[in-house]
């Protein structure tokens, strides 16, 4: 059994394109997912029933349905209603609304972990809800949110591989493509596994550096209201 490196090297354009698309999808979907997560989290912890229950329904729905089904629904079912999204757009939308539910849970966990005295103190100072959430509670979330949030972002990078099933030309699709041309399944799939591993490891290292940078263990630092 010999490794046929030529098959990979000759088709490197496809692979590079695949890596580019995977990174593009992830790094657009992750910030949007975080944004959705914050909004859903605010709705989830709100006392208004009209916000609270829909948020719970959204989170539970997203957390209990496989992403693949969601992708298929967006891609195959929406055209029946006259909404025709391209594969790439479907990818962004699906990944970000899917990740948003998980981020929402992470943020909620963070808000619940903030000491109760912080809320009481903010209220006692007569700060308005929106203000103290934005200026007092959310800055403290870094500590609690960063590690699980990183995990979810990592999962989103990995889940973007599912988009190969709706012919988005990301890394897994590139592998199928090369495999179809050259019949070298071992080399191609081993290569993309390695590339995914490199992407994820680099991502983890970067976020690790970022985390030690924001001094998450020092609560007094982030408590200051500027």
């Amino acid at each position: 059994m010999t490794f046929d490196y030529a098959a990979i090297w000759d088709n490197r354009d496809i692979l590079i394109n695949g890596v580019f698309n995977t990174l593009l999808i992830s790094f657009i979907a992750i910030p949007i997912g975080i944004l959705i997560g914050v909004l859903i989290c605010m709705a989830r912890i709100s006392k208004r029933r009209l916000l609270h229950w829909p948020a719970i329904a959204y989170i539970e729905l997203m957390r209990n349905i496989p992403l693949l089904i969601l992708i298929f629904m967006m891609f195959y079912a929406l055209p029946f209603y006259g909404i025709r999204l391209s594969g790439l757009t479907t990818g962004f939308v699906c990944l970000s609304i899917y990740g948003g539910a998980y981020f929402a849970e992470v943020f909620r966990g963070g808000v619940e972990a903030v000491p109760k005295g912080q809320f009481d103190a903010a209220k006692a100072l007569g700060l308005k809800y929106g203000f103290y959430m934005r200026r007092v509670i959310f800055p403290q979330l870094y500590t609690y949110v960063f590690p699980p949030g990183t995990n979810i972002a990592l999962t989103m990078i990995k889940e973007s591989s599912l988009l190969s099933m709706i012919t988005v030309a990301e890394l897994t699709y590139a592998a199928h493509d090369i495999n179809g041309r050259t019949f070298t399944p071992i080399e191609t799939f081993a290569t993309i596994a390695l590339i995914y591993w490199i992407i994820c490891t680099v991502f983890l290292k970067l976020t690790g550096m970022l985390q030690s940078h924001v001094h998450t263990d020092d609560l007094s630092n982030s408590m200051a209201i500027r």
Partner: protein
Amino acid sequence: MDLQFLDIIPKSGPLFWGALYTLFVGLIACGVGIFVGTGLLLMRNSRFWLLRTFVGIYGSFIRGTPALVQILVFYYALAPLTGINIGPFTAGIMAVGFNSGAYVAEILRGGLSRIPKGQWEAAEALGLPKRKVWFKIILPQVFHSVIPLLVNEFTMVIKITPLLSTITLVELTRASQMLYNETFRPVEVLSLAALIYFIICFSISQFGEHLQRRSRKYRL
């Protein structure tokens, strides 16, 4: 387009069988996962640094690559590489099981760290051999304390099984694909599939949460 669930529901027999198959595959894969996870836990605590390093590399590989790619590697690459011709069923179960194994190992590690040191010392003081200490004293306690988390891991496994449709396993997702190709009604069929997945995963995760609450109540 108007929804015609009434037309689809009588034809949804394949979805039902697909759901059963999903549960079946999920259960076996979860079993494999627990087996692998226990093995990894023992290896992590082994005397030999080679085994300990292996666990680290294994965990990093599983965490750093998508489950879909792992399944594809298992299905397309492992059989020609080893010469063992495993069918899609075995390959799928192995891939999902080995994937889950890494996460189960993490769960078990968390459980292990909660075992009081006295348990080790007591076992040692009784002069039990190392194997007996692990299998008769430590592991039962670890498993007992992480049952809720293992139940949640089962829902994670169920959510990975749709990926097995790529390697031609006719589980719920594949069954629904076949059904909507036949009936040209993706909206209804996929909604039904999503509903089935939701019912399965939601009930299991609620059960897990129930167990967690109960275990919290009885914690010493």
